[in-house]
């Protein structure tokens, strides 16, 4: 009970302390969006040829005739009610649009993170076990190359090799083949939905569409993860308790995976949080390369049409995810190392 209450207090405290930053983000985006060139009222009345009274009517309807501070207050009040405004390009409330598209982005990002961790942890551990060996050099090489490769270039090169040359990957556009039936909308995560209805063929098709974009993004974050795992494992492996565990005759894998890895995990968790937030930004590029129907490409389209509301909604969403990720990281610390929970 005591433990649960302390955890709840921690979560509450963390959430409260992130309010000013999120509020700052909201205000800053609001201001940036208001200096965007182009008058949305003119744009959506059908260009400068539209009648002046039509434009004025739209302006009043959109609240653009009021002074800036009033507009800001109205915007904040709407956010508090869960109303992010209406997208002028899709004609739908931004909340609905985002809710429709968020699963696509999350599925991509989470799959990529999983792939990256599955590759980075073993590589980092192997490199740390044999510093100076061929594996270590390979990992170092991969890390150095990984951070230099722009995601949009590596994505296109993967398309060239696996779609054009080898023909292993399906046409790299969208989440699902145009002719395939989409699964019933349950969670919005295609892999989960196909699995829930037991459609094996559909699941494989969705996974095939997902694999190239998620590999692209995984390559992008492999380097920091593997590098940190290696450094952290190296530091831990030199510790007295590892020597003791070995001296007591515990099997080698047990020493490494249980005693060393658990102690080496904290910095890896920290870097995973940082990496996750850079992935949110990289999403824009990857979604563009693979015509992925996620929130980032939605925001990019809106940005180019000077449609304020979706962009503001997107940035608010990103900032909130960022805060949530930091919170989860904080809680994971406590799980990985009870001393850190303090």
């Amino acid at each position, binding site marked *: 009970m005591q433990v649960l209450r302390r955890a709840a207090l921690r979560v509450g405290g963390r959430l409260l302390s992130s309010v000013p930053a999120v509020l700052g983000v909201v205000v800053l985006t609001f201001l940036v969006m208001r200096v965007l060139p182009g008058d949305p009222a003119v744009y959506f009345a059908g260009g400068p040829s539209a009648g002046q009274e039509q434009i004025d009517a739209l302006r009043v309807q959109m609240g653009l005739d009021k002074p800036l501070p009033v507009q800001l207050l109205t915007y904040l009040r709407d956010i508090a009610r869960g109303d992010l405004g209406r997208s002028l390009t899709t004609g739908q409330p931004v909340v609905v649009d985002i809710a429709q598209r968020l699963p696509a982005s999350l599925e991509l990002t989470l799959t990529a993170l999983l792939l990256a961790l599955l590759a980075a942890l073993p590589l980092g551990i192997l490199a740390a076990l044999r510093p100076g060996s061929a594996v270590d050099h390979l990992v170092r090489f991969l890390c150095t190359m990984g951070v230099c490769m722009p995601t949009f270039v590596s994505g296109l090169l993967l398309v060239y090799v696996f779609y054009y040359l080898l023909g292993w990957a399906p046409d790299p556009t969208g989440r699902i083949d145009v002719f395939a039936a989409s699964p019933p909308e349950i969670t919005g995560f295609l892999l989960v939905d196909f699995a829930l209805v037991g459609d094996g063929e559909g699941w494989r098709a969705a996974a095939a569409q997902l694999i190239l974009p998620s590999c692209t993004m995984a390559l992008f974050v492999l380097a920091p993860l593997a590098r940190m795992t290696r450094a952290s494992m190296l530091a831990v492996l030199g510790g007295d308790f590892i020597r003791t565990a070995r001296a007591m005759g515990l099997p080698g894998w047990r020493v490494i995976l249980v005693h060393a890895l658990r102690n080496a995990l904290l910095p890896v968790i920290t870097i995973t949080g940082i990496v996750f937030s850079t992935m949110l*930004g990289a999403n824009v590029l990857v979604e563009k390369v693979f015509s992925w129907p996620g929130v980032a490409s939605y925001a990019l389209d809106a940005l180019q049409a000077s449609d304020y509301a979706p962009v503001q909604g997107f940035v608010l969403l990103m900032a909130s995810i960022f805060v949530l990720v930091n919170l989860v990281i904080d809680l994971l610390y406590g799980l990985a190392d009870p001393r850190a929970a303090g």
Partner: protein
Amino acid sequence: MSAATSGLPPLLRHAGWVLRGNPVTALAMLGTALLVLLALLAPWLVPYDPIASNVRMAMQPPSAAHWFGTDQLGRDILSRLLMGARLDLAIAASAVGLSFVVGAVVGAFCGYQGGWLDRAVGRGVDVLMAFPLFVLAMAMVAALGNRVENIVYATAIINLPFYIRFARTEVAVRRQAGWVEAARAAGHGRAGVVLGFLLPNILPNIAVQISLNLGWAILNAAGLSFLGLGITAPTPEWGIMVAEGARFITAGQWWLVAFPGLALMLAVLCFNLLGDGLRDILDPRMRT
């Protein structure tokens, strides 16, 4: 130590020693120098006009006449690559330079003075860091207008938090040092102490940061123009070249994307390795 090098100042001698032990850094220096040279001499080196289109020669694969092939309008990719190097390096250098100057000065004053200024700037930095930085840059270029200088400003602003934090901590640990005390006692004012003594002292450490940052700034600028922000069509620039070539990759025309992509990668690789090498030279404790 041979007689030829023993007359050099200690830092240079030390640098020579590190470089001999670390040929990768030497290579990175060479690569960076070559890159800058190519960019500077590009207008005299290009074999073809990088903007003139020649539809008869469109989509030629690499050949002796066009080493890197031609694009969908028949423009020579090598020529566009060389001219693009100028623009990309110029954007990255001016963005990093701008955020370095502003960030170092602001951060140094914050670290020296503390108090309300420090707290206010710290809050501002927190807000900036709560954004996905690339998204922030996108929004800024869109807001300020599709011009090259706005890519520079956007890239400078998203780099700013790192310089402010870095300079702030570096100055804060030196604030109470004896020589700072001495400078104060000698009658230097606040600005004099910060600009005349503290900033020069932390400069070498920031130099490492600059080199590592340049690579990131290039990736960032190229990413923005890949999305169609900031740089408009006929201008030769690496990101926009990749974007234009992207349409043809599923038809197997790889050279439109591969060469600008490779150029980006090599440039970033050189800057990153150079930064690691500089750190080795300046701070032996950090050597990996």
